[in-house]
């Protein structure tokens, strides 16, 4: 480009305003188009036979009766399909990452309850499920591997015999004399083990896909419920050893993902292998039981934390031993988030030294997949530890945080993992949240309540979010902005918005930077034949990366339009401005051209273009962003605990967030709210439970309790808006933050309420039974 992008939009009409969503009309009227709405001629329907056993050998597998059922078109087992597999790896982590051994269908043994053993393909889903009932499987049970701490050192009972170990990946301890010296000389050293249990992502739309191998054209067509159509295409090209350009993947509306729908999983692979063999389109829609048992799980990890503190209450060092249960077949790679857990463990505090080691361990359970802030054990471990240590030191948790928090005068601040915070506001957000909740008033109220025998508590959580992580495939995004011959705009992106409102927010960016009305911008995504290759939507990356690409492409088209008009009207480009799709001479609005007239020149009246100019009026921009864009927030939660029943009631929930320039404040608050409630649910209600035999016990929504409107509080928001210096729009990603900050805020509030009883809270969940057990144990200890 001949000129640099202007620093500000021509007319900032849309960025920064709560534009109502352009997605809503179709969704509100029942005209959204989700995966189960896909119908193609000749469509068949699939259902899976799954393992009832956590670990064991398959001694008999008889599918003959199912094959003979009228309406069943195929029944496939590993013997039929697994030979069609070639490479198995995800682009995000690369071919050299550690992986579990891969297989579409269980072959000879089973490794978790819910593992797919056979696929039945039939004329209807009803018949496919009838067919599944007729498949007979006998097993020789083996003792399941369930405890990651035991499994990590066990080479006899292993989940994957091919590997000979249960350790999926490891960050070894590094010798660190400086760290040990800090612990040796510290005024106080505290140690605690903090855990979080197994959560599930629970998108309201379960997984699903339609796949069609056309044996004549030798092409594969996939309709997917995915966060990343291009990853599906790239993955299946490798998996089947066919060229990417023979595969087309599309997604329309997707009913939530939360990390579960980024990567192809075993059912997807099986359906694709099945259509390759059968040559007919096959639909598989996961039912809720399958989703709760076999889709993927998350969290299920613990940290042993040592913290060294000086006499003034300043943290000198933290040492962390992190263990993750990654189940049997995690994605991506080994399913570990430990690198980011380590990177962010010191969070918003001036902690000069960090030791960290990790083991990610296979167990005979549902495999791990990313879930909104996959590395967030750093915030859970650190923020719960902050409260435990504050109480030991006799300091208020807010005061202990204030003694250690990064302040504006500390910037740029380098963490012990060599991350440089250029623009963060943890101090400011903490103060704003303290102010919003009226912290001192609550402490007074709490004291009065305690005198009446009521247990109120307040919990703080502060974090820095490494949004928009610019590694590998994730380091760039792409947008095409095309003015069509009628002067209207197509915005074509590699995103896969599935609730993030990109159809609205990206159009806001284009409207401002191109200079058109937002209603003239149509957003197109999710089709690998149309949209350029990219990573999709996840990782709090869209504002920075997709926004950066949309902005750059818009600016290029804007500049070209200006050049065309300048030539046609014999005006100087710097005298022209564009607004509402009309380019005019500044101060002389009568001298103007519409974007439609410009487009007509660009496509048809090409002899009127400036000499040498390429015809057309579109631009594709790839935006490579900074490695990190730091956003941050402080959460404060207040609760009342009924010690007679163990029931926790959230009284207030306050979030102060800094996500830089807000493209659409309504959407920002909506993202915060959704994440916060997922975190509240995770602490108080949600728990995927396995029994001692590896049987899942939470297989319906009556057992796995997603919070409802009746349980959640009104969420109050404050904003500190510090533009990100690393990208031209000043945006910071924030999609995951709510779910990162909320669990420790809730845990700390419950712990604060129960502190007078001598109770310390280090584990979750905190359902009524769990809280009641803590109260009972404390009473038993004092009598």
């Amino acid at each position, binding site marked *: 480009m001949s000129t640099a992008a202007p620093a500000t939009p021509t007319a900032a009409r849309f960025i920064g305003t709560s534009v*109502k*969503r352009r*997605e*809503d*009309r*179709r*969704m*509100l*009227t*029942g*005209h*959204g*188009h*989700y995966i*189960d*709405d896909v119908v193609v001629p000749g469509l068949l329907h699939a259902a899976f036979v799954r393992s009832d056993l956590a670990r064991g050998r398959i001694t008999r597998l008889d599918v003959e009766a199912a094959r003979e059922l009228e309406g069943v078109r195929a029944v496939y087992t590993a013997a039929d399909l697994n030979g069609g597999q070639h490479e198995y790896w995800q682009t995000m982590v690369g071919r050299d990452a550690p992986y579990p051994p891969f297989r579409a269908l269980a072959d000879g043994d089973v490794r978790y309850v819910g593992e797919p053993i056979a696929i039945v393909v039939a004329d209807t889903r*009803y018949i496919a499920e009838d067919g599944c009932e007729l498949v007979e499987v006998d097993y020789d049970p083996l003792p399941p591997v369930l405890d990651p701490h035991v499994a990590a050192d066990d080479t006899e009972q292993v989940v994957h015999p091919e590997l000979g170990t249960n350790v999926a990946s490891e960050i070894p301890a590094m010798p660190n004399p400086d760290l040990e010296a800090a612990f040796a000389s510290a005024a106080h050293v505290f140690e605690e083990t903090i855990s979080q249990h197994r959560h599930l992502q*629970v*998108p*309201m*739309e*379960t997984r699903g896909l339609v796949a069609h191998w056309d044996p004549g054209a030798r092409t594969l067509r996939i309709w997917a419920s995915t966060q990343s159509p291009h990853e599906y295409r790239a993955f299946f090209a490798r998996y089947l050893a066919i060229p990417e350009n023979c595969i087309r993947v599309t997604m329309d*509306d*997707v*009913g*939530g993902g*939360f990390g579960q729908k980024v990567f192809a999983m075993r059912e997807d692979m099986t359906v694709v292998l099945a259509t390759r063999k059968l040559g007919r389109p096959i639909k598989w829609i996961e*039912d*809720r039981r399958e989703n709760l048992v076999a889709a993927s799980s998350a969290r299920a990890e613990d940290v042993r934390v040592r913290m060294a503190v000086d006499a003034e209450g300043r943290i000198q060092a933290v040492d962390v031993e992190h263990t993750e249960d990654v189940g049997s077949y995690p994605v991506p790679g080994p399913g570990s988030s430990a690198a980011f857990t380590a990177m962010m463990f010191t969070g918003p505090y001036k902690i000069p030294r960090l030791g960290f080691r990790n083991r990610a361990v296979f167990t005979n359970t549902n495999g791990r997949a990313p879930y909104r802030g996959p590395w967030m054990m750093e915030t859970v471990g650190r923020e719960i530890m902050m409260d435990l240590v504050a109480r030991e030191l006799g300091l208020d948790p807010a005061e202990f945080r204030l003694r250690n928090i990064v302040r504006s005068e500390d910037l740029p601040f380098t963490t012990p993992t060599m991350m440089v915070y250029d623009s963060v506001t943890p101090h400011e957000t903490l103060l704003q949240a303290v102010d919003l909740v009226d912290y001192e008033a609550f402490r007074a109220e709490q004291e009065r309540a305690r005198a009446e025998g009521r247990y109120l508590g307040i919990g703080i959580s502060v974090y820095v979010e490494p949004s928009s992580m610019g590694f590998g495939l994730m380091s760039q995004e792409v947008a095409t902005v095309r003015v069509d011959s009628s002067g209207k705009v197509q915005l074509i992106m590699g995103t896969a918005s*599935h*609730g*993030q*409102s990109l159809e609205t927010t990206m159009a806001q960016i284009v409207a401002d930077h191109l200079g058109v009305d937002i209603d003239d911008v149509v957003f197109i995504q999710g089709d690998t034949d149309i949209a350029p290759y990219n990573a999709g939507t996840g990782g709090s990356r869209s504002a920075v990366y997709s926004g950066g690409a949309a902005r750059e492409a818009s600016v290029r088209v804007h500049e070209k339009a200006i050049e065309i008009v300048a030539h046609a009207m014999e005006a100087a480009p710097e005298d022209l401005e564009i607004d509402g799709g009309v380019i005019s001479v500044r101060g002389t609005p009568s001298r103007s051209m519409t974007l439609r007239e410009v487009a007509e020149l660009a496509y048809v009246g090409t002899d009127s273009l400036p000499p040498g100019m390429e015809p057309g009026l579109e631009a594709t921009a790839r935006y490579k962003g900074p490695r990190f864009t730091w956003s941050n927030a402080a959460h404060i939660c207040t609760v009342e605990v009924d010690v007679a029943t163990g029931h926790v009631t959230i009284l207030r929930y306050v979030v102060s967030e800094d996500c830089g320039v807000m493209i659409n404040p*309504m*959407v920002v*608050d*909506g993202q915060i*709210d*959704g*994440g*916060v*409630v*997922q975190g509240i649910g995770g602490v108080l209600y949600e728990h995927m439970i396995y029994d001692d035999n590896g049987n899942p016990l939470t297989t*319906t*929504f*009556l057992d796995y309790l*997603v919070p*409802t*409107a*009746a*349980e*959640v509080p*009104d*969420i109050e928001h404050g904003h500190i808006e510090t533009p990100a210096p690393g990208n031209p729009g000043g945006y910071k990603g924030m999609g995951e933050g*709510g779910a990162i900050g909320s669990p420790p805020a809730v845990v700390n509030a419950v712990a604060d309420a129960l502190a007078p009883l001598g109770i310390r809270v280090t584990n979750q969940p905190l359902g009524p039974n769990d809280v009641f057990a803590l109260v009972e144990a404390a009473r038993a200890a004092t009598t």
Partner: protein
Amino acid sequence: MNEVPVTVTVNDERYRAFVEPRKTLADFLREDCVLTGTHLGCEHGVCGACTVLIDGDAVRSCLMFAVQADGAEVVTIEGLAPPGELGPVQEAFREEHGLQCGFCTPGFVVSVHAFLAANPRPSRTEIREALSGNLCRCTGYQGIVRAVERVAAGIAGAPTAAPTATGDEAAS
């Protein structure tokens, strides 16, 4: 499999089909009537995504067989407003950002119609209780609760009582 005839009036249109007795009303609406706005989120009656109105009452169409709806008047999300238009509940959801991925939304909107028809002036607690039969994983319910309050308060010309079928019918 034996198929039996059913006749169901859906959104003022009559649908006749032969269906297996085991076919759920939800599948009948989605497959036989091609009204795919009714979504299936759990198929065991908890999430509420499949909620439709049957003779004015909110019903989970995943827990009912199509044959049980023989002769009934059903209203689905598609029938709550004239094509291309938003009814007051839908408009309020849009104004208050009561939806993100949109999958649970039809069930919420239908449930809210039935709720406000029965209780046009609910308290916030009553709203939260009434919404507890529907699950949403995106919004944290904040915008949904606000949307119901907005309709109940009659903001922006919303009627005090929600219609139970199309706008035309409700007016008559």
